[in-house]
C-alpha cells in the first residue's frame, strides 16, 4: 500500500467497518492485542530472575506497549509475584514523529497531531491514541518521553549491532538512541538495571541503514574467510 503507518491504520479502520467479520490485530482487535502486550512485562521480570528492572525504555507509536508494560509490572507487584516499586518509564520517539515527546517537553497533558517524516516508519503514528496515558505514566514514574533524530537512530542501530550482535529495525534504533541521550544527560544512574525494548528485526528496514555498515565480500574459501575474520576481529 502506498502511504505511511497512519494511512494504513486509516484504511484498516475503514475496512473493518465494511467487513464486520474481519479482524485487524491493532484496529478492531486492539483491546486484546493491547492487553496481550502485558506479557512482555511478565517475560522481562521472569528473565531477570523474578525481579523488576529499575527502568524500561520503550519505543512509542500509539503508546499502547508503553502503558501495558507498566500495567503488567503493576499487576505482578499487586499479586506478590515480584516486589519493589514500578520501574521508571522512558518513552522513545523520532523527532520526525514526536507528538508525545513534544507534549512532554511542553508540559501538556495531550498531544498535538503531527504529519510523520522519519525513517522510523513503524513508529509513525501522528495522532497517538494512548499519548495522554503515556504522558501521565512517564511523569508519575519519574521518566520522560524523548525524541531523537534520524542520524541518532542510525547510530543507535549501529551501536546495538556492534555491542550486542543484535540487528534491530529503526524503532530499536530510536530506543537505543534515547538510552544514549539519557546517559549523556546524566539521567541514568550507572548502577541502574535498564531494559530496552527492541521490538523489531533489522532486516525489515534495510533501506534505512544502507551505507551505515561495511559489507565484506569474500571468495568461498576457508583462507579468505579466516583473513576477513581476522581483519574484523582486529
Amino acid at each position, binding site marked *: 500500500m502506498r502511504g505511511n503507518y497512519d494511512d494504513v491504520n486509516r484504511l484498516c*479502520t*475503514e475496512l473493518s467497518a465494511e467487513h464486520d467479520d474481519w479482524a485487524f490485530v491493532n484496529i478492531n482487535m486492539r483491546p486484546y492485542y493491547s492487553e496481550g502486550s502485558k506479557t512482555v512485562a511478565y517475560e522481562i521480570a521472569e528473565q531477570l530472575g523474578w525481579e523488576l528492572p529499575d527502568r524500561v525504555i520503550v519505543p512509542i507509536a500509539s503508546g499502547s506497549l508503553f502503558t501495558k508494560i507498566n500495567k503488567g509490572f503493576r499487576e505482578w507487584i499487586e499479586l506478590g509475584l515480584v516486589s519493589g516499586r514500578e520501574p521508571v518509564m522512558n518513552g522513545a520517539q523520532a523527532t520526525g514523529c514526536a507528538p508525545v515527546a513534544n507534549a512532554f517537553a511542553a508540559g501538556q497533558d495531550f*498531544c498535538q497531531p503531527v504529519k510523520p517524516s522519519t525513517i522510523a516508519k513503524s513508529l509513525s503514528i501522528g495522532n497517538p491514541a494512548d499519548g495522554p496515558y503515556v504522558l501521565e505514566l512517564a511523569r508519575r514514574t519519574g521518566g520522560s518521553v524523548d525524541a531523537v533524530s534520524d542520524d541518532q537512530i542510525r547510530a543507535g542501530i549501529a551501536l546495538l549491532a556492534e555491542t550486542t550482535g543484535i540487528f534491530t529495525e529503526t524503532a530499536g534504533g530510536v530506543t537505543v538512541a534515547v538510552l544514549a541521550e539519557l546517559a549523556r544527560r546524566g539521567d541514568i544512574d550507572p548502577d541502574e538495571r535498564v531494559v530496552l525494548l527492541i521490538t523489531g528485526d533489522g532486516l525489515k528496514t534495510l533501506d534505512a541503514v544502507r551505507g551505515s555498515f561495511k559489507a565484506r565480500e569474500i571468495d568461498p574459501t576457508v583462507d579468505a574467510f579466516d583473513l576477513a575474520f581476522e581483519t574484523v576481529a582486529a
Partner: protein
Amino acid sequence: MAARVKIPTQLRAATGGASEATVEGGTVGEVLDGLFEEFGELRERIADEQGGLRRFVNVYLGGEDIRFLDGIATSVPDGAELTILPAVAGG
C-alpha cells in the same frame, strides 16, 4: 452545497445503523452541525464542549485530516466526501 458523510461503525448506534448521510453545509463545521441536527446523539460523541473535534475523532476531507487543513472552518466543496474515524489504532 451538500457533502456525503461516512459514519464509522463505532458511531452507528447513534445513527440508527446508517453508515452515511448527505448533509448541507459549506464548511466542515456546518456539515457536522447539519449531521448533529439529524442525529442528535452524535454531537457529544464527536464534538467537545467548545464545539471543536474531540481529540480522538478524526475527520478527513478527500483523504486529508482536517486538522492539517483549516479544522472545522475548512471549506467543503459541493459533493465532497467527509469521513469520520476514531483515532484508536496502532501498536
